[in-house]
């Protein structure tokens, strides 16, 4: 996360002067792409400015973006045309495609946002005014004001969408939620997404019912609650825990101290002709705790306390590259390919 996100000139400048490509460093592509990436890449979490032939023009670290964008453009302009428009031949290898997941055919694709919240003076909710991007020796560092938004994706398979269909249901009738959908919602999204999904679901309930039936469409309501990760226990101190090191009275157990509890409410709309949802808006409102969460919120606080957090879901078409990225929980190297499982 960096000031790049807030510099208004950057997006238009990149649109005008670059061909931008976003790469998961762990799955850079087929062998030809991986070879090119290895040739030009400096490291993980970098912007690399290169020619199509592989000449490096510059780079910036993601946390310290300066004006090297502009310098790279000037360097590029100074190159001979043959280097600016090189003959690069075949760019894709005939080898096996990369293990990079895109939405399965017929999938429902949703964006999921996460934001830290605070109670405002009137008792309502506001976004947290500040968060910290890192912790060092147990102390929060790199403050950001206002607090940032996290983004992830959620996929429901075509089979799950079919199972959620309210076709033939009357107002008030329930639609059974597949166990895999319940598990996915709770396991991967009933948590502080800044920290990553939790390891377990302690308990929860999820229900879907028809709110209204209109010609051609059905409106549904989704309700639920979930308790995930470790239960909160204020007697477990986080003091003395140092990230990446072994130490502290409960360090061996700190990974189990992350947890959350959420309420969910959602409003869905199903197009009977298209046999697809054209609305999937949902909110999860709850509290989270643990070393990362409390650190990002300026802690660890004494005494410790659960901290408010919200998640929001919205349907996207899934046809833009930015909306085709793999949900974190579905990364082939992240959770052992358990994203689509029922239990």
């Amino acid at each position, binding site marked *: 996360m960096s000031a*790049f996100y*807030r510099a*208004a000139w950057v*997006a238009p400048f*990149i*649109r005008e002067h*670059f*061909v*931008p*490509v*976003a*790469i*998961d460093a762990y799955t850079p*592509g*087929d062998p030809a*792409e991986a070879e090119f990436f290895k040739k030009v*890449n400096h490291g*993980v*979490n*970098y*912007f*690399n*400015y290169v*020619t*199509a*032939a592989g000449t490096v023009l510059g780079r910036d670290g993601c946390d310290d973006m300066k004006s090297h964008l502009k310098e790279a453009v000037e360097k*590029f302009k100074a190159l001979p045309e043959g280097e*600016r428009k090189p*003959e*690069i031949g075949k*760019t*894709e290898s005939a080898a096996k495609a990369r293990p990079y997941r895109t939405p399965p055919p017929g999938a429902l694709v949703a964006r999921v*946002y*996460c*934001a830290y919240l605070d109670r405002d003076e009137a008792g309502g909710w506001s*976004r947290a005014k500040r968060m910290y991007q890192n912790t060092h020796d147990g102390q929060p560092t790199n403050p950001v004001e*206002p607090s940032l*938004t*996290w*983004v*992830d994706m959620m996929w429901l398979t075509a089979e799950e969408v079919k199972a959620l269909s309210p076709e033939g249901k009357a107002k008030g009738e*329930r639609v059974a939620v597949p166990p895999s959908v319940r598990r996915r919602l709770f396991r991967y999204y009933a948590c502080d*997404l800044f920290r990553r999904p939790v390891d377990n679901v302690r*308990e929860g*309930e999820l*229900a879907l019912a028809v709110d209204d039936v209109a010609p051609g469409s059905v409106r549904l*309501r989704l309700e639920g*609650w979930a*308790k995930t990760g470790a239960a909160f226990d204020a007697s477990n101190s986080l003091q003395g825990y140092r990230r990446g090191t072994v130490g502290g009275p409960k360090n061996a157990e700190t990974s189990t101290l992350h947890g959350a*509890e959420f*309420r969910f409410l959602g409003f869905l709309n199903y197009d009977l002709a298209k046999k697809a949802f054209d609305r999937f808006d949902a909110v999860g*409102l709850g509290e989270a705790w643990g070393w990362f969460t409390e650190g990002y919120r300026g802690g660890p606080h004494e005494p410790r306390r659960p901290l408010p957090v919200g998640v*929001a879901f*919205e349907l996207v078409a899934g046809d833009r*590259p*930015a909306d085709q*990225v793999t949900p*974190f929980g579905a*990364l082939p190297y*992240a959770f052992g390919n358990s994203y689509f499982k029922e239990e």
Partner: protein
Amino acid sequence: MRTLAFLSLLALAPADLPPEIRPEDFAKLHALIRPPAGEFAWRDEIPWLLSLGEARAKAAAEGKPILIWNAADGSPLGPV
């Protein structure tokens, strides 16, 4: 949005849960948690490709440099 009494679909939820989300608060909460205008310009206003091969071909054809943004643990357009 319904204006009638909102009858919960759920069985008796534990008393120690966070408060229920009221339907009349839903739209405001949804908007609050979503990123404010401009925060995701880097994601939504830049025509990111996902393939290096495609980027190289396009850059060579158009006479532009490539900006490769890479991240660990997933795409930089996703949860990083």
